[in-house]
């Protein structure tokens, strides 16, 4: 009995980053503030396809992807098709790229038109299992997680070193599958980039 209790305690106190959101399961809801202080919830977008992009404007991989790589104009093109694209910064206060001003600057530098939400406690990042910036999650219209992982297969962020020789934008591919009514073919890849700057 004591052993069982100890195992239970260890499980509860273990890292909440370990599991993350499960593919095929309901995506964790969240309520976060955007850079204007407005509250944005995942539940606001019920019935829509949602892309969550973990973001840090000072991460060199994010900079590369937003200026030369697969994130250039991707959010804009997908938003024009009715996809909801939300960038989330789970950096704790004082960490690299955290805070309203740095993210406002990032939005301007990268000409972003989608909202950036601040998750300073890291609760949402940990609920999803976000480990890197960028790290992308795609949620289908039924609210289920259907893709998690890298934006593409070029871990330099620039799209210049694709594994296997051909650049693949995994998020665009997942969204194309969804639009065609197909299961997402590549639904789980290893994210690359800077570590998410959690507080603890």
């Amino acid at each position, binding site marked *: 009995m004591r052993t069982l209790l100890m195992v239970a305690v260890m499980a509860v106190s273990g890292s909440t980053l370990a599991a993350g959101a499960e593919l095929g399961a309901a995506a964790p809801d969240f309520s976060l503030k955007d850079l204007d202080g407005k509250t944005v919830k995942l539940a606001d977008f019920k019935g829509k396809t949602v892309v969550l992009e973990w973001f840090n404007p*000072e*991460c*060199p*991989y994010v900079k*590369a992807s937003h200026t030369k790589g697969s994130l250039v104009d991707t959010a804009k093109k997908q938003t024009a098709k009715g996809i909801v694209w939300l960038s989330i910064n789970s950096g704790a206060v004082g*960490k*690299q790229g955290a805070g309203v001003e740095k993210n406002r600057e990032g939005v301007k530098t990268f000409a972003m038109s989608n909202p950036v939400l601040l998750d300073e406690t890291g609760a949402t990042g940990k609920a999803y299992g976000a480990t890197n910036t960028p790290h992308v999650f795609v949620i289908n219209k039924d609210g289920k997680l259907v893709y998690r992982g890298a934006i593409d297969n*070029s*871990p*330099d*962020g620039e799209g*210049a*070193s694709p*594994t296997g020789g051909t650049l693949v934008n995994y998020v665009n591919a997942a969204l194309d599958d969804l639009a065609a009514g197909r299961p997402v073919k590549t639904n789980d890849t290893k994210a*690359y*980039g*800077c*570590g998410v*700057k959690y507080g603890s």
Partner: protein
Amino acid sequence: MPRWTVMLLLAACTQPPVVAPPVAPARAPEAVGAPRVEAETYAVTLAPVGPYPPTSAGEVIVSIEARAGYHVNADYPVKFTTAKDATVTFASPAIPLRDVLHKTPCEKQPTEACAASAKVPFTAGAAGDAVVAGTLAFSVCSAEQCLIEKVPLRLTLSVR
């Protein structure tokens, strides 16, 4: 002739002659890169592994040493992009090195690499001095941040 005109003419005559600025002597374009580049967070080196017989296969060793609490980012696609003025022949313009890196673990953090090296193969040309040159793209990370670096390296070899 009015006095002011005379005075103007006299003033013009007494001006010192206009001297053209000295022309800098012509010189060869400045070489980009060096065999070793050091910075706060890294040092990178391009080192010879001779001898280099003419028209034969050869290689150099490119090395990355992380410093100041940084480690080599093993996930980054380390790449040597050859320079146009290199005088040896490489197999391709961009040589991926990530999968052939020999990594040295950090003393205090053995799961991370504090140094890495790889061979860069080429074919030498005719006898004489040869230039191996290119840009090494790599990344180093600390607990706080990752940096992506692109450093030009250049080495002159003796092919004989």
